């Protein structure tokens, strides 16, 4: 079971809200599906992100993929160490592998809880 203290997008990003700030990352499923991560681009502190729009890009050995934001708001912190330590995503996608922190102004209407996300993963596996 994935952590139930956060919400998920069907494109496999998660957001965890504490006060007026959301921490955002991608799930362990996304990491294993992409495999062999090489490069990651994250936005700068101060930039705006919009729910449902890409905020970053990640390259595995064979494909570049967009990373979509579950929330809208201003980026207030970026995990700057992550692009040079992508193994962190393999070992701890839900904590040390966080990507950005966003001062919230809104969130996607498509967010689902951990149970619904597990159902989605089961359906994708079938």
């Amino acid at each position, binding site marked *: 079971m994935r952590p139930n203290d956060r919400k998920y997008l*069907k*494109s496999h990003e998660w957001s965890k809200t504490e006060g007026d700030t959301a921490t955002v990352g991608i799930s362990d499923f996304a990491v294993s*599906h*992409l*495999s062999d991560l*090489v*490069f990651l*681009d994250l936005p700068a502190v101060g930039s705006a992100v919009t729910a*449902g729009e890409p905020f970053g*890009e990640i*390259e*595995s*050995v*064979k*494909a*570049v*993929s*967009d990373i*979509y934001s579950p929330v809208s708001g201003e980026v207030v912190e970026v995990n700057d160490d992550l692009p040079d330590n992508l193994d962190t995503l393999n070992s701890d996608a839900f904590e040390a592998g966080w990507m950005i922190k966003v001062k919230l102004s809104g969130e996607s209407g498509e967010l689902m809880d951990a149970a619904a996300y597990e159902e989605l993963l089961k*359906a*994708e596996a079938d």
Partner: protein
Amino acid sequence: MGLDDALLQSSAPATLRFYSWSPPGLSLGFFQEQAAFADVPGSHQIVRRSTGGGAIYHQEEITFSLSLDIRSDSPGIIDWYVGVHQAVRAALRLVDIAVEFPDKISPVTREDQRRGWCFDHPGPQDLISKTGGKILGSAQRRIQRPRPRLLHHASLIMRAPSATPDCGAVADYRPPEDVREDLVELLSHQLSNFLGLSPSSEGPDEAELKTAEKLAMKPHGDPDHLLRR
């Protein structure tokens, strides 16, 4: 590149596009450093692809892009590469060109990927000519919105360019001009078989052309996009 990115965003279920380069082009992988290729000799245009991988000097080659929906039963990333490359291998065999998957591969560093040529580092899914050089370059971009889609870029080398003289090429076997036309048709047939689709021949629609024009201006016409790394 603008048209390929427009096709990625298109509502068409699947598009296979063949094209060539005039003048020659130097395309960088999405995450590559432009400065590493600033001194490559030759008269060429330079562009940053939205797909990943290493740089390619596009001169005498058959370039194609495949843009299509990712369905729940679509192959995973690696199986996708194997499927496309098997289709290309089958097309080449029909013009008596035998290429194979590599027996052994050398490890690729992150630096190689940031500053290297696509054809310098064959991976396990790549096709190798009888000279030992990689003959087909492939790279992908995947999006999830508005619906899951992928863009697959591929370059089948007809004659090795001076920038990457050690890559494999159709010219290792036969004069490229003798087989080019047949190969385009065979590739279309074999790739359609792999995708389970029946191809019809038509150009881009109005919406795709409009999007392509926009994307050709930005990001592709924007120097900052090329110099972003």
